């Protein structure tokens, strides 16, 4: 029987530091876990006593990949606390910016971080020699999504113009028209992306779990909404703690969460499973090509759901730009803020899943803060997946076992900086 001891210290091609530990004797798994070893940064502790208008710019720095997600959620929570109503134009621009980030983050994950595994490459760099057109396509989509964020908020990583009350900058009509042309042209790249990812030999691994996401009556939810779970629970965002129930784990610098069954999953696959009907028809076509139909319970296909969402966000960005142009762009600043004491919660479904920010303000200063990050919510589910997968593959060569576990971790698109920061795999 197989005895395995695998120790992957600092799993690569993920954001942040984590380790995988797998210990098996005589074919029996003694230990299989994922440790988060990132240096904790204490955002909730240090935003206290700081003015309301700094908070979303500071919490944006929780994560360089989903900084639009953090900045938006943070601004919304502060706006809820201070009783601020956005203009319709600002609301549309926030959604457009958000789509830019979803595409940006998903193209990074699917092409740069996941695809190399299927081409037997250690990174996207050797892929330049193996399949240059694929890499160039990825670079084109990445640049497009980054530029989309830039015309709205100045840049993607740590958006400048996104502030409490709206935006300090509004794109010019011509910029939106030019962007629309580029988005339409990018349909070809999206079709090719769907074709590429549909052709990959995705690992087969099924484990049913509870999928948690936002939901809305009128659209595929990213920015705001209600909490929905595939086990039939619904909560208003203010009651997020009913879903998250945070606790600490000794091997991890990130807090873990539990709901109905214990572990649950958030992210593209959860949104796909919970809100499939609201996807753009072209995104549904992409899902069909990828052979995905809810309920999808293969965790590896989280990356497939990301490809579907890229198509959706591209199409919906075109729609939003049309709506903005039809309304006529107003060069408006953020709405005026009247400081009041209060508490505010907000949630967005950011690239890696549902995110919560919750603050209390007194005299314009933050007195309490709580941020619950998607990656933290996935650790329990990842542990359960590893627990089921490891015994199924333990008789395979050690390198294969190691790769399958790393790919599983990567499928979650973990953002360990967000949760605090670090990842490692240990095989014995």
């Amino acid at each position: 029987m197989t005895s395995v001891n695998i120790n992957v210290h600092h799993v690569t091609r993920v954001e942040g530091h984590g380790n995988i530990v797998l210990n098996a004797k005589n074919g029996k798994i003694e230990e299989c876990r994922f440790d988060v070893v990132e240096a904790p940064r204490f955002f909730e502790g240090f935003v206290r006593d700081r003015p309301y208008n700094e908070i979303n710019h500071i919490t944006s720095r929780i994560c360089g990949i989903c900084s639009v997600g953090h900045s938006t959620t943070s601004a919304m929570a502060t706006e809820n606390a201070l009783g601020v109503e956005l203009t319709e134009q600002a609301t549309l621009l926030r959604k457009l910016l958000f789509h830019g980030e979803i595409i940006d983050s998903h193209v990074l994950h699917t092409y740069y971080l996941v695809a190399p595994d299927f081409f037997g490459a250690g990174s996207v760099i050797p892929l330049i020699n193996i399949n240059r057109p694929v890499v160039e396509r990825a670079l084109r989509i990445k640049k497009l999504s980054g530029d989309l964020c830039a015309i709205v908020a100045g840049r993607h990583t740590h958006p400048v113009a996104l502030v409490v009350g709206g935006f300090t900058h509004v794109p010019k009509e011509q910029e939106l028209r030019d962007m629309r042309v580029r988005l339409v042209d990018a349909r070809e790249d999206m079709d090719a992306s769907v074709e590429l990812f549909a052709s990959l030999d995705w690992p087969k691994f099924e484990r049913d779990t509870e999928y948690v996401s936002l939901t809305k009556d009128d659209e595929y939810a990213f920015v705001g909404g209600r909490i929905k779970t595939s086990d039939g629970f619904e909560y208003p965002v203010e009651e997020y703690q009913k879903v998250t129930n945070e606790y600490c784990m000794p091997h991890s610098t990130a807090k873990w969460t539990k709901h109905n069954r214990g572990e649950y999953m958030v992210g593209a696959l959860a949104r796909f499973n919970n809100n499939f009907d609201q996807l753009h028809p072209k995104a549904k076509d992409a899902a069909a090509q990828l052979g995905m139909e809810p309920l999808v319970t293969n965790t590896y296909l989280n990356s497939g759901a990301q490809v579907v969402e890229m198509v959706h966000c591209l199409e919906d960005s075109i729609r939003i730009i049309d709506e903005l142009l039809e309304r006529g762009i107003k060069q408006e600043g953020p709405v005026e803020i009247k400081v009041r004491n209060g508490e505010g919660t907000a949630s967005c479904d950011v690239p890696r899943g549902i995110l919560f920010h919750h603050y209390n303000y007194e005299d314009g200063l933050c007195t309490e803060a709580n941020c619950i990050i998607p990656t933290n919510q996935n650790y329990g589910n990842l542990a359960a997946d590893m627990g089921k997968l490891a015994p199924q593959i333990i008789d395979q060569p050690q390198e294969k076992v190691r790769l399958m576990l790393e790919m599983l971790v990567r499928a979650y698109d973990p953002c360990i900086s967000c949760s605090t920061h670090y990842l490692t795999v240990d095989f014995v």
Partner: protein
Amino acid sequence: MTTNNKVKVAFFDFASCEGCQLTIVDALQTHLDLLDMVEIVQFREAMTEKGEDYVIAFVEGSCTRKCDEERLFKIREQAALVVALGACAHTGGVNALKNVQPSLQDVREYVYGDKADWYETYPTRPISAVIDVDAFIPGCPIDRGEFVKVVKNVLLGKTPGIPDYPICVECKLKENVCLLLEGQPCLGPVTRAGCGAICPTYGEGCEGCRGLIPHPNENAMKDVLDEAGLKLEEIMSRFTMYNAYQKEQIETVEERI
């Protein structure tokens, strides 16, 4: 130098959001030619391959715990050049905000409750407080154009060429309307340029993420604040957003204004 004449470089990260490394990935969109000049031997965020024979080390993030010092010492020992990448490595960045809270223990307990002791941490430091640093690329995040320029300069054996004049210079060149004149707080007059004044250009006052210029002109800052009808208190909080570690330096500026 390696046999293929490419300089071996490596990227490392400590407490940070990894947004600067991401900005480098984005810089490659338009500067794939950089890969003709350097060979990346380590970049955990983006690649699995790992080599230890690097000549230039780019380090993102702050040092926030004793156990990370050892990693920094090793990097220093190996690399001929260590470049601090971005505000967290350069000034301590937002991570140093915990340093100006009344008590570090309170901050730990606030986040992790009675499990606070499981999480090792000490007051945040820029990496230059732990090891010698040969060059820095400021900003939160770094500016991708500036990154490309610094890499090219370093490869040519030149000094990186980071500006030591204030943001206002770049803002004027862009013909932006001065935000201070509109009564908005902005640290442009005392903050190091090089970002193309991106925040004022997008309507938001400078938050000082690139650190103070070497000899800030406090008198001029005082004049513009008076002219804008702003009080010092209204901008003091902004000074610490990315520069909390430089508390003494900030206090000196404060006293002089």
